[in-house]
């Protein structure tokens, strides 16, 4: 039987949906018990959200001022301090989890499994390599704790019918003073979050400028969609980095993904492999994006996108 600890991701007030997805992954392991750890300055609201996730037995809150912001090097020793007795420690494969979990693994003296996309057994998992061009089955040693990140695009969120106990954990672990949080700058947007949106409209270099990205936003808003971008569009300064989709940006799985003025480089496609329906709008009929598109339309985005926005 397994005992699994999941590290919750949150922004201080709300739980990130990646946590409920990690619970679904954990439920696929013959789990005796799934606990969720919330590291925060004030864990109240987030712990409440975690406690109702189906399948969670216990929520452990570790409240201290240093946990106000998620700095991996400061959270890791606290995870290690509570690791005893757990067969698995899982985090989301987001920038939060990628920063934290390898640090946890190294402190525990084990290797880490990145981006679990499927659970085969308690110690056997599938994960993507080479930008998703191959899937490898990996087997972790049975006599060590499994530390892993969960590829959030591969799992749906667990439901909300639970009622787990909330208990306070040890908040007295000594922490290093060598790393200090300064600030977080987020472009504020009312659009749905890229990583959970059911629909996403992304623009690429073909969009041409920051001003022209208004076309992408207008279409996204008409569809109630999140807005994304290729790396080339972010590099060119058309939009902020948090919009980047792909191998080194966000890996997403919306029901509908629209790629506008995006050529379809492998590194971009990695980010959308699990999308339900992919629509491509591109003036070059040879663009590789059409090889993966479910619906393709060849033409000039500057006429197509406004027309489509009107027609919807």
């Amino acid at each position, binding site marked *: 039987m397994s005992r699994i600890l999941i590290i919750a991701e949150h922004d201080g007030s709300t739980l990130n949906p990646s946590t409920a997805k990690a619970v679904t992954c954990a439920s696929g392991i013959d789990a005796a018990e799934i606990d969720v750890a919330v590291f925060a300055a004030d864990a109240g609201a987030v712990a409440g959200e975690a406690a109702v996730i189906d399948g969670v037995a216990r929520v452990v809150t570790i409240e201290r001022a240093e946990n106000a912001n998620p700095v991996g090097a400061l959270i890791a020793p606290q995870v290690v301090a509570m690791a005893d007795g757990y067969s698995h420690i899982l985090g989301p494969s987001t920038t939060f989890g*990628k920063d934290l979990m*390898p640090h946890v693994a190294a402190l525990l003296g*084990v290797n880490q499994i990145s981006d679990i996309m499927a659970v085969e057994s308690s110690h056997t998992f599938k994960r993507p390599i080479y930008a*998703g061009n191959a899937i490898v089955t990996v087997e972790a040693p049975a006599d060590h704790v499994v530390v892993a990140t969960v590829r959030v695009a591969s799992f749906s969120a667990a439901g909300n019918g639970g009622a787990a106990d909330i208990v306070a954990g040890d908040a007295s672990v000594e922490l290093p003073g060598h790393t200090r949080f300064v600030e977080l700058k987020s472009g504020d947007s009312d659009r749905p979050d890229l990583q959970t949106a059911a629909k996403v409209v992304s623009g690429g270099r073909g969009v041409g400028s920051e001003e022209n990205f208004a076309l992408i936003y207008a279409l996204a808003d008409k569809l109630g969609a999140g807005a994304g971008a290729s790396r080339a569009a972010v590099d060119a300064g058309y939009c902020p980095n948090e919009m980047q989709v792909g191998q080194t940006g966000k890996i997403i799985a919306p029901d509908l993904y629209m790629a506008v003025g995006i050529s379809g480089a492998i*590194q971009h496609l990695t980010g959308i492999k699990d999308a339900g329906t992919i629509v491509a709008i591109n003036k070059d009929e040879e663009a590789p994006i059409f090889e993966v598109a479910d619906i393709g339309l060849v033409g000039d985005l500057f006429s197509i996108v406004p027309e489509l926005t009107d027609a919807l």
Partner: protein
Amino acid sequence: MDKILVGLKRVVDYNVRVRVKGDGSGVDTDGVKMSINPFDEIALEEALRIKERGEASEVVVVSIGTADAQQQLRTGLAMGADRAILVKTDDTLAPLTVARIFRELIDRESADLVILGKQAIDDDNSQTGQMLAAIWGRPQATFASEVVFDGGSAKVTREVDAGLETIEIDLPAVITVDLRLNEPRYVKLPDIMKAKKKPLDEIEFGDLGVEGSPEIRATAHEPPAAREKGIMVDDVAGLVAALKDKGLA
């Protein structure tokens, strides 16, 4: 700052679309173009700029791999690194073992800063820098898109899912770099000639005295699930109809 170590991993070039071998034993890398991991070029470029600003005295590039990795180290020397170290092994080492090797080299070289890529594009692990920071007991600034030094500390801007986060770290430290940190320089022919004279030391992994780590074994490889062939539409009306058909509009 005295010395900066930079990791250069030899990987299949990012333009190559790799294929899984028929027997599932791995991916086919025979005759495929190999390059420096793209993030590692950015790591090296950053180290060179730090040195050129007079904030460090030496840049040492390190690769762990087969003798072939000499090529990538030579390229790193041509870009401007002062010295290279090849830790030779025919085995694929796990990230924790690689981190332990860097930990050992930090002591041998008395390095103050280690700059690595945020991930190697072959195994897409994104682990080594964080593991090194953990076993070294020093700060990690992962996914860096801007680094500014101020005496014994550095302010690092990180690309995170929510936007741009800034942290302050004390040195010595580990930084892992994201794509937008800088644009690596091109190597010029005279630099390639000069690089041939720069020192490239080889050490057998077995002679380093670094212990291995509990291995996660790859037992099978398969190609990703293929997507079904799509349709082409002629105009916006056709697109709207196709979307309605799927209940998406």
